């Protein structure tokens, strides 16, 4: 499987930079002072966390699933817990409840790690579905019928030769890229739906737009994203 780094050039560059700096810190090479190198290394590692690849995250989930690896869980927690808390706060939920949401979500990640299928979704997508369901449990106290997508995956992968198969990581990276290319008004609608869990009719009310305008923004956005992915992923 090709790395997410193929599309995430930043990850690749930062990995190289990290190795160089590590060598400097260990005294193997010179050019910049050791203290500068230590600081730079710390900065690079923070940046690396922003652009950590899906393969790395998959490895952590797999370690939890197969070995109940608590260190792997701690790494995954450090990557996702702040994002999950931020996700809760974007909805207007207070900091304490958003931390509870992050914690509940990560506990489910630990319990359900064995059900994660890296051929079906990226780790971020899988965790998104967990936090979405937790958010409904915690804040709306209603059931949430789930669609089982396992067959969709089988269909999507049918009849494709293994060597020209795009990995989930690669299509995930392409989707992120495509999202940045969407018109702002379309992104705003998607963000309100996902971050603030507002239905399209509530979004139309809040933005003071006719319902038809919001519907067409959603349809256009999804069509553009679909077209940005290779046909065999659709």
């Amino acid at each position, binding site marked *: 499987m090709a790395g997410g780094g193929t599309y995430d050039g930043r990850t690749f560059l930062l990995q190289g930079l990290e190795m160089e700096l590590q060598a400097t810190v260990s005294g193997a090479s010179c050019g910049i002072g050791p203290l500068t190198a230590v600081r730079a290394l710390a900065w690079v590692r923070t940046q690396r966390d922003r652009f950590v690849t899906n393969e790395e995250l998959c490895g952590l989930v797999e370690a939890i699933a197969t070995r109940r690896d608590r260190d792997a869980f701690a790494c995954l927690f450090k990557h996702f*817990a702040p994002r999950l808390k931020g996700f809760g706060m974007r909805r207007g939920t207070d900091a304490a409840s958003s*931390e509870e949401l992050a914690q509940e979500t990560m506990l489910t990640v630990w319990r359900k790690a064995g059900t994660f299928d890296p051929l079906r979704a990226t780790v971020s*997508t899988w965790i*998104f579905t967990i936090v979405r369901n937790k958010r409904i449990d915690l804040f709306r106290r*209603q059931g949430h*019928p789930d669609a089982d997508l396992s067959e969709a995956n089988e269909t999507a992968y049918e009849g494709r030769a293994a060597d020209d198969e795009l990995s989930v990581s690669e299509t995930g990276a392409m989707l992120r890229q495509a999202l940045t290319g969407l018109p702002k008004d379309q992104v705003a609608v998607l963000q309100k739906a996902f971050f603030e869990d507002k239905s399209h009719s509530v979004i139309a009310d809040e933005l003071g737009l006719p319902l038809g305008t919001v519907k067409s923004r959603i349809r256009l956005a999804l069509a553009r994203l679909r077209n940005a992915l290779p046909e065999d992923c659709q």
Partner: protein
Amino acid sequence: MITHHPAAELLLDFTAGAMSEGVALAVASHVAMCGSCRGDVALIEAVGGALLESVEGEAVAASLLDQTLAMLDTPDASVAPSPRLEPGSAEPVPEPLLRYIGRGLSHLAWRRVAGMATVEEARLPMVAKNIKVALMRLKAGSLVPKHSHRGNEFTLVLAGGFSDGVEKYGPGDFAARDTSHTHKPVVDDDADCLCLVVLDAPLRLSGAVGTIVNPFLRI
């Protein structure tokens, strides 16, 4: 072949988690029956994943990781109730519906809909009270009185089929109707029809026969 699907905005509401339980049940059940909508939901979930990855992180309390690590081995108290179907029974309903039908379709509290010998319904339990979610069994060839809606009506065909005068609906087809629609569905002649019907506000009667069937259409 499925020809009627939930619109993109409904798939987005559903996938983002911004949909009431009853409507989500109809959409999830359709998606379970429809390969093309499963693909769309997978795409929308991937958008959710990409947005989650892009969220500006909020620092969590330093103690949260240790607290969470200490909780890892405690059993999960929030396990969703699993289907309670009688062993060996196969019900003609998609997976998301199973947990709502208890021991099976024949054990539901079916009641004849007033005024109509050919239509029965069984309400499904929902947390929210302002929504009606029911399975309906309609005999082959039966007519449902002309009606319109004050809110939205969502119908998913599970077996058999009907026609609303303009379009035909078969197994897996999903119909959404809002206040602007008045319709008078006719069930196909060759088979009984089983549908999941979700109403998020009371109906408005538009035909003379309506007064007779009022109790049926009342939420």
